[in-house]
């Protein structure tokens, strides 16, 4: 076939595995051909003879020679992934879907609410926001995880805290003696942040329960529905709007999302499950 086969993955060499937490690893991949994506878009990653799963790259969209995915060990494909070593190959297809609407953030404050492995897509966004920080007023990142041990990207957090216009607040559900930041679910961080709501937009990414209560709190704070951007997670197979798995009301999350504003999807059924 002469035309592009949408189902055929590009081979990508795994060159490095970074252990982020006991259940989360980052895989650094070098695709056989240069590969670009927009922040918030996702890729389908194949483990040969095992399966395929969608991930939003956690690396900078400005980097085209290699990309990173950060993966929580949570199902069949990811369990096998966690056993993979540098030198092995994965397959990638994409990029797919609609990413974060960066131009909507110009001249605004950006509040980001992230939980658990939801930091992965957010890190890609933060890299991109740093690159366009002259166009932004401020970026406030609130991140929650279950325990200090499960807080990922610790070196990057340090770097972010030293970046002008960026501030980071963290919480854990359950602290230990080492923890010096907030304790509680991630939404407690919203009580402390100072944001100019009429001149800001907010991004939410994390487990469904966190997205649900995070969105509720943001609405209570006065954020307009069309300024809350959610990165939705659904079962996906093709990633192209053909296989039907990610149907959510009138949308295919893969094709029409995965990033939606809350007002676009608030009437769709089962958005939080």
């Amino acid at each position: 076939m002469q035309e592009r086969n949408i189902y055929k993955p590009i081979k990508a060499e795994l060159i490095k595995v970074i252990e982020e937490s006991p259940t989360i690893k980052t895989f650094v991949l070098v695709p056989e051909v240069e590969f670009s994506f927009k922040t918030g878009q996702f890729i389908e990653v194949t483990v040969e003879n095992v399966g395929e799963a969608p991930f939003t790259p956690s690396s900078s969209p400005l980097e085209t020679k290699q990309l990173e995915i950060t993966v929580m060990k949570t199902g069949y494909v990811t369990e096998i992934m966690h056993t993979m070593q540098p030198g092995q190959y994965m397959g990638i297809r994409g990029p797919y879907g609609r990413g974060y609407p960066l131009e909507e953030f110009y001249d605004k404050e950006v509040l980001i609410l992230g939980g658990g492995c939801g930091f992965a897509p957010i890190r890609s966004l933060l890299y991109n926001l740093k690159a366009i920080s002259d166009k932004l007023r401020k970026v406030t990142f609130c991140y929650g995880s279950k325990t200090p041990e499960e807080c990922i990207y610790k070196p990057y957090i340090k770097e972010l805290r030293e970046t002008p216009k960026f501030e980071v607040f963290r919480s854990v559900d359950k602290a230990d003696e080492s923890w010096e930041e907030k304790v509680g679910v991630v939404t407690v961080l919203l009580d402390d942040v100072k944001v100019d709501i009429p001149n800001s937009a907010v991004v939410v990414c994390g487990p469904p329960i966190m997205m649900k209560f995070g969105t509720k709190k943001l609405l209570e704070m006065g954020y307009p529905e069309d300024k809350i951007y959610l990165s939705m997670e659904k079962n996906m197979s093709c990633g192209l709007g053909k296989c039907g798995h990610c149907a959510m009301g009138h949308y295919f999350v893969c094709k029409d999302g995965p990033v939606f504003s809350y007002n676009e999807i608030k009437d769709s059924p089962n958005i939080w499950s």
Partner: protein
Amino acid sequence: MSVYRISEDKWVEYVKELVREYQVYAPIVKTNSTDFEEITPEKIGRINYGGNTASTPLKAFFFPFKENVVVAADKKPRIIIGVPNCDLAALDLLDNIYLGGEFEDLYYKENREQTILFGKDCDSIKDSCHCSAYGLKPYAEKNCDISMSVWDGNFYLVPMSTKGEAFLDKHRINQNETLAALPEKVVQQRAGLVTALQNQNKDIPDEQASRRGIEKENPELWKKHAATCVSCGACSLICPTCHCFLLIDRRDFEKVKNWDACQLPGFSRVAAGEDPLLKLYERLKFRYLCKFVYKPDMFKAIACTGCGRCIDACLGKINKNEVLIEACQGG
């Protein structure tokens, strides 16, 4: 309109010629069903040119139950004879999904392009046939290359596409027997079947009424009908418009596109365990929402063509039309 008339004995010779060059499929009557089979010269006499739907929906030719979508198989040009209009109408949606938008499915595209479709006139209706409820006719209206009607030992072929015209130009039928229009008897036969369908289906709500009924908050209705559902997925798999699939991974990064169905457990479950269609009655309702609300809105195409296969196939005896009639009751 040009209509080519060919007598039955000449038609048999014609098909024998076609079989040399093409893979020819047509409905064959079996003990308890009628289904498409590849035609050899010996089988030509067993082709059922009338009847109604075959067991297998047309989609299976373009979107096979299982297809390697990384390593392409060699494909011979095909002819499919005897396709009912309920299957042809389903192509509006399937073409839109597989060929529309940013990404084209090359496998579906090639399967479509390599096939000449002969639409047929149904000459009988089964209890579950209800294409008329959605404004469709029991004869080829569009989405085929040639329409074929049978009357009194003669076959009447009408080109329905430029591909069909080119085909009839290449494989010439006795050109002396060209008519300006279908014989009155064929027209009457068609009209008679339309009337019979309308009488059979007069109580079935149309698309708009069905939509309003399904959108009502009525969990009890769905729980009641889901009570006999065994989640076998037959209704979806057998449906001419259901397009869902799962990519199965193989060695060397090969992928096999396998039919999948929203009625099967786990269809929408994510790795962490959340499943928006966990409850059986919600899965059942989702199927109706998909057919009458989501797909018409998303693709401007009908997602139920009234073929009735889901009614015939249901192990739990769920009759889709009875569900819709009930959904529409009470204003």
